[in-house]
Each structure stands twice: as C-alpha cells, then as structure tokens.
C-alpha cells in the first residue's frame, strides 16, 4: 500500500507533515513521494480534509465473468454505441441550439451507459489481465496513424497487478 493525495480535497492544514516518518508527504508537486512512502497510513488517519487515502500496490483477482454473460452485455453495449453515433450526427447537423443540446445530452448518456456495461463485462480494473490482453491486441494494428507508443507505454505502466 502507499498513500495518495486528492489535491481537490487538500486544504493545506498539513498535519500529514507532522506524522510522516519518511518525509514522503512533503513535496513540491503536492503529490506523495511514492518512492519514500512506506504505506504506514499515519497521514491518512491524521488528515481532517480526507484528502489522503491508501492505494493498493496489487489487486485481487477480479470476479470471474462467464463468456455468455459478457456476450450479452457487449451486445447491448454495441447498440448503445450505434445510438451514440446517431446522437453525435444529429447534434452536428442540428439547426437549432435546443436540438443540439438534447442530442449532446443523449450522446453523453449513451457513452456513460456503455462504459458502465464494459466495467461489468470484465473491463473494470485498468490493471486487470483482461485489459492487458486488450492493450497487447491493439499493438497488432496495421494502421500507421495508430498511436502505438501510447498503447505500449500503458502496457509498461500498468504492470499486471491482478494476482
């Protein structure tokens, strides 16, 4: 485990500085120095603005999902993606601001639903084995404009932490 700070909540009372045994909470960037943090959790307990939490270094094996269930969920998601594209086109072609506003809302709605469906079809944790396989699959793209360096960087950064 290591501590992590949500800067939106941090109101700079800085009690974390009093209790950190390694000086990991004192940085110029505002984030914890992960190299120094030993995961003792003292800063988390002393922070009154709830800006600090402990993040795991490794994650448990994700809940198994049957292929049948994933197929069903993916099929529903596929159609929502189609609907999202229709909303996007209607938004771009709209003559009136009101129509544009409604179609933008619908486009966002479909995207949020689709993302949520993917989470429950085995793609919730970015560090999971499923996501890693997907990223490796992306690297097989033949399209010259595919940002391979970015996919590769993600494979490196999201070391397989699900065990």
């Amino acid at each position, binding site marked *: 485990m290591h501590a992590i700070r949500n800067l939106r909540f941090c109101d700079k009372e800085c009690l974390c500085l009093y209790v950190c045994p390694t000086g990991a909470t004192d940085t110029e960037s505002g984030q914890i120095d992960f190299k120094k943090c030993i995961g003792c959790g003292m800063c988390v307990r002393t922070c009154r603005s709830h800006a600090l939490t402990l993040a795991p270094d490794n994650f448990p094996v994700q809940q198994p999902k049957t292929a049948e269930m994933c197929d069903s969920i993916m099929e529903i998601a596929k159609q929502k993606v189609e609907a999202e594209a229709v909303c996007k086109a209607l938004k771009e072609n709209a003559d009136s601001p009101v129509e544009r506003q409604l179609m933008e809302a619908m486009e966002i709605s479909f995207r*949020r639903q689709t993302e949520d469906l993917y989470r429950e079809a085995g793609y919730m944790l970015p560090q999971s084995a499923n996501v890693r396989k997907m990223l490796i699959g992306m690297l097989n793209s033949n399209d010259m404009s595919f940002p391979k360096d970015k996919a590769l960087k993600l494979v490196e950064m999201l070391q397989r932490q699900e065990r």
Partner: protein
Amino acid sequence: MSKYKCAICGFIYDEAKGIPEAGIAPGTRFNELPDNWVCPLCGSPKSEFELMAEDEAPSERKKIEPVSLEPTSNAIAATIPAGEGEDRMREMTFGEMADMCSNLQRGCEKQYLYEEAGLFKDLSDYYRSKAEPAADPTDAKLLALINDNLSKYDDANADTKNDRGAKRVLLWSEKVMKILQSLMERYGAEGEKMIENTNVYVCDICGFIYIGDNPPDICPICKVPSLKLLKVERRQ
C-alpha cells in the same frame, strides 16, 4: 384512495395527499392527473406508474450468499481463455473501442493515475476519429434503436445468473433507456418547447437525463448526489 409507484425511481403518488406544492390537491385521483403529467422526481411518464397493493409490505431483505474473495486460479483460467482480450477486440468496432478506452480512462482517474488516464484518452480519441459516422441519422432511427435495445434486457438478465454487478448495470441502464424513450416520444409530440425554458442535466455516473430548472438532490436511478448531475449547456 390508492397509491401509485413509479417503476423507474420508486416515487409514490398518494391520491389522499396529492402534491399541494405542485397544485395537485389532496384527493386527486391518479386517473385525473393530466396525460402529460410526469414523475416529479425522475420525469417518467404516467405509464411507468403501477398501482400499489393495499398495505404493500416493504420488500423482504434477501439473503446474500457470500462471495469468495479469492477465486481459485483454475476458475479464473476457465473464464479467461488465452487471447480472449484480443479476440474480443477484433470483434469490436472503432466506436466501441472508443468507449472502452474512455471507460479505462475513468478507471485510472479514480485511482489518480492521471498520466495513464491521459494515454487512454488519447487512444479513445484515436478510435473515435476512426469511427464511421452514422448513416442517415434521424430522430425516428434513434427512437427505433432505443426501443430495440430495451427489448434485449430480458435475455441479458437471464444470462447474468447470480452476478450482482451485471444485474446492477442492467437494471440502471434499462431504467435510463426508459427515460430516454419517453423523452424522445415527448420530444416528437411537444417539440422544442419541452426544454426551451428549462435546463438539461446528465448523470455522469449512470447516464440519467433530467429536464428541469434544478437537478434533484440525488440521481433517481443510481442515487449519486446532485454534484454528479452535470448541466448540458445550450450553445448557439
């Protein structure tokens, strides 16, 4: 006097009480409410309301079966055949990959992994730029897609067996789809005056859309506080 319950968000219309603050006097029968009356909490049409049985008892708490936190590695191996990610990816369109990557972007943001989130965003943008635009888009086509999508939920629910997370996402997204269906039907009948003088909000968690001056305190579908109900601006 009877009570009617909204099947989408659970709001109860009590004929004996009416809704005086909305000009509906106590004793007003559900049937006497105008046809275009909608649920004050979530905006669902009258057709989503169900008559409640007299003295309907609160639903009994279901017994929860314990879930093993550490499934055996064999069980995992059986559910993830070798190369599964790549196989599934090959079947996915660019549009689907775009939403898959934005999902993972949000998954990284939650963990404050901002650099990783940015990389997933770039991948999502790449796939979105490659996605085919919709062929002859119309409101009618959108409504047809919504109706067809709603017809798939019974089968999907049957396939989820005891997966609590899957049942949860299907319940929420089916409710959201019913809201979108009624909004498109109302939009077809009423036109722009449906939203001309008010605001539009989208729930950033479940996709619920609310038409009204101010968002409800919590999302009627996923119950997230209103700070996650984002206002969609009207741009010229």
